[in-house]
């Protein structure tokens, strides 16, 4: 092959690869920069007091304890609603659903649910749970809304986990006289739990960081005490961060970054946990 065009092609390649590397670096550095900014400017505010005391002086001082508690309670309740329903739906799709129009419709619905804007979920939660069901702005309304929002995440992860269990396990169980449900319960589900767990953790991480769905369904800016029941309003970290960074002047910068840092750490550590668990179980797998 003649040398000139080849050398030109190699030159083009070198330039192209440099650009690709540059592009990837921009993306990677952006991620690092965002996380870095928050860590560097926020870690100064992190202290035991910050995490465990109530806010004071109109949010300008004190801690973010109620926001942390609110987020934890909200997310916990969300999982209680979303996990059983999501796993059941995944079981339906993998073990019971026939290959027909109804199943295709179900899958289409799931794809769409995962694309609905978070603020539309907020409107839905407002219309259905707060107003129609008369739950009012409460932990109940907020967690039901969030549960519906993370349902596609849990269904997709659980479905993948169930499909990864070899078909032969089901055959063996059936051949030993088990019914279809017994087979799912004893020879499929236990081996799908790692995948379901990682999917749930990712769903929790998502629910913890979302603001729009809780804006009209549960979030309060300031509550003098912690919620007593699921019908109470609650404070939450994402909403808190939004308000103190856009609505309230004169909050010390460290306070703002500190709140952002707590939220970021919560969400990222959940994600890292999911990744680590996924790798761990893949390695430990015996089939």
């Amino acid at each position: 092959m003649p040398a000139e065009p080849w050398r030109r092609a190699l030159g083009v390649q070198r330039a192209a690869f440099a650009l690709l590397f540059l592009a990837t670096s921009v993306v990677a550095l952006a991620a690092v920069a965002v996380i870095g900014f928050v860590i560097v400017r926020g870690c100064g505010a992190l202290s035991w007091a910050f995490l465990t005391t109530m806010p004071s002086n109109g949010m300008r001082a004190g801690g973010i304890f109620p926001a942390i508690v609110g987020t934890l309670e909200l997310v916990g309740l969300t999982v209680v609603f979303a996990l059983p329903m999501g796993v059941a739906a995944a079981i339906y799709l993998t073990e019971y659903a026939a290959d027909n129009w109804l199943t295709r419709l179900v899958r289409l619905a799931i794809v769409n649910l995962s694309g609905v804007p978070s603020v539309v979920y907020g409107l839905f939660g407002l219309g259905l749970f707060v107003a129609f069901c008369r739950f009012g702005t409460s932990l109940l309304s907020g967690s039901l809304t969030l549960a519906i929002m993370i349902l596609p995440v849990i269904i997709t992860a659980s479905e993948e986990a169930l499909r990864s269990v070899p078909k032969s396990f089901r055959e063996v169980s059936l051949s030993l006289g088990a019914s279809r449900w017994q087979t799912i319960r004893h020879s499929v589900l236990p081996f799908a739990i790692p995948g379901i767990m990682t999917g749930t953790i990712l769903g929790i991480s998502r629910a913890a960081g979302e603001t729009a769905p809780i804006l009209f369904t549960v979030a309060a800016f300031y509550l003098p005490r912690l919620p007593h029941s699921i019908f109470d309003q609650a404070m939450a970290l994402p909403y808190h961060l939004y308000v103190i960074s856009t609505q309230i002047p004169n909050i010390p910068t460290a306070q703002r970054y500190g709140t952002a840092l707590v939220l970021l750490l919560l969400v990222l550590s959940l994600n890292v946990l999911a990744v680590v668990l996924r790798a761990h179980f893949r390695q430990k797998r015996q089939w």
Partner: protein
Amino acid sequence: MRWQRGRERLIEGAIWVCGISSIAIVALIFVFLLKEGFALFRVVSVGAFLWGRHWYPISEPPQFGVLPLILGSCWVTAGAVILSVPLGIASALFISEIAKGWAKEALKTGIELLAAIPSVVLGFIGVTVLAPLIKQVFHLPTGLTALTGSITLAFMAMPTIVSITEDALTALPRGYREAALALGATRWQMMNRVLLRAAGSGIVAAVMLGIGRVIGETMAVMMVTGNAAVIPRSLLHPVRTMTATIAAEMGETVRGSDHYFALFAIGIVLFVISFAINVVADLFLHRERT
């Protein structure tokens, strides 16, 4: 044995109900949006709503034209797409074809982490770091502009674009690469002329899902675009998106008022747009797989 069978039938019934629940939920969302949103159209015509150039919900009489909001969403989305699509596809190519070993794993994890950052945190950084920067660089009265929104949202779209494109590239049979190289192509020529074309529908799906993510984004865009509900004239001015409007104004609206219904009507528009984007993207993704 008999009551065991009865109990099992109950469990299987519950599973069936949960299985088709997603259809019910989508239908419910649509119904509730319509229920509240359509109430607006008793007072305002659909035309005046969709093409009206003025969004003054609290003036007397109120005007509910969403055109400025739709255009605001479009401008910010367009800007984000222009930034994120080339960067995203380029990164996906790099990660899938060039990066090796631990670097590849590190980059993939980095993208996953970027995707996990809550939008309110990105909005926070946008307000505290990016907006002052833009204000300085362009000598503007305020750094809260459409451009700021586009840049912030580009970071939210990039992980989606990168991971789906990367999936599409990895799914291509090795034979494509080997055949191209065996015919004397350089690796870049193979990537550019063969792989990108072959993964075409997957890439289109990735971009569409990225667009869907950006259009639907609320908090980050609300915090950095300045919230001026006017027809956008340039990227360096504040704008208002549909999502930000709902989020910002719902808190001050009386339930059952026309303003309340108008916000739900915007929700219908958003729902329909995201529905359409997702259906089309899903079609492209499945065309790719078969």
